[in-house]
């Protein structure tokens, strides 16, 4: 959903804000083997832009928050897989179901992230369900 932002962001801002989504996209792919990389990369980008303008900070925060919730889901799946390969767990219906559900959520995030990256680059303010509202709450002008 495109919403109105308090002000019209400049060219350099839309680029940075858009980059924060691309960053989290790269992090998702790089982080698949070890989900913590996801969060660290986005967190690093978030910290780097802490002093940025409101528009940049807002979108970095939204990217970070959505990233953080996937971290739990992916970490759990990651350790479950490790336990199957090295431990005593066996592949079960529950495991396959978990992976498919996690895959759907990751894919949803992937599509939403690409969409947000493109739209913010054009200067449109993309506000996600829940994460956008939460970002409004924690990210002040």
């Amino acid at each position, binding site marked *: 959903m495109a919403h109105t932002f308090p002000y019209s962001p400049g060219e350099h801002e839309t680029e940075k804000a858009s980059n924060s989504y691309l960053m989290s996209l790269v992090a998702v792919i790089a982080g698949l083997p070890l989900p913590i990389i996801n969060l660290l990369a986005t967190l690093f980008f978030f910290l780097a832009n802490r002093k940025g303008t409101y528009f940049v900070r807002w979108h970095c925060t939204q990217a970070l928050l959505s990233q953080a919730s996937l971290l739990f889901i992916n970490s759990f799946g990651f350790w479950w897989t490790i336990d199957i390969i090295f*431990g*005593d767990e*066996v*592949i*079960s*219906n*529950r495991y*396959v*179901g*978990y992976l*498919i*559900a996690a895959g*759907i*959520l990751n894919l949803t995030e992937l599509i939403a992230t690409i969409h947000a990256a493109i739209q913010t680059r054009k200067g449109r303010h993309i506000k996600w*369900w*829940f994460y956008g*509202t*939460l970002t*409004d*709450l924690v990210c002040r002008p």
Partner: protein
Amino acid sequence: MKQTYTVLLQGLLLLIAVLLLFVLLMGTDWAGLTNAEERSEQTAQRVGELMYDFINETEEVATDTALTNPVHQLIQKLCRDNGIDYSSVTFHVLLNDEVNAFALPGRQLVVYTGLLDECRNESELAGVLAHELAHIEQDHVMKKLAKELGFSMLSTLTNDGETLGLVFETLGSSAYDRELEIAADMAAVEYLEVAGLNPRAFADILYRIDGMQDSSPEFLDWISTHPDAQSRAEAVMDAVDSELPIPEPVLPSAMWDDMKAAL
């Protein structure tokens, strides 16, 4: 304030949606995997039956009720009080001087008379039995066998003495993974407490077995399948409620004495 409320509401809805997705997908039967689980259950049952016959043919099974009664009573007590299906558990007391007890596929327990000799009271014996029952309840037996011998080998197992001997040997003389042992110990403590037996006695026999390791090779069996007995004894003591009073004996004292006399 209104914003906080909206965030909470949206968060809750999102959480419900995500949970629903997981519940639905995790409850689905993917590509007949359940069949694989059923097959593995059938294999366990079949391997168990083959092992049962194998033991009766090749091992010296104790028939003296003085020897089998205490084992029978303790297993029954542990099962009934802990909601374990007792009727499905089979046990064999074997005339063998080694201090050993182990679980077999198909919910079977093997106890050597050497262990009966080593135990100083009913709770020590109950401790080892509870530990092995936990291996059965937590389905460790087939996991270990599949790991050591491979599932395909087990699913094609026939009545061939050599391979059955290998299965028996594997379960009787190789260790479970450490975490499985810890899980079995912790479950044993709970089984003992619930059944009114003394879990500290379980720690006692672990300590003693650890001390015997160097002196007497005939004790090696339960030690070699259960290494690191001292740290396990300590973990068991930590898990026991320090307020727990020493319980009254469960077995009639004559039954215990008769068993000792029959050894």
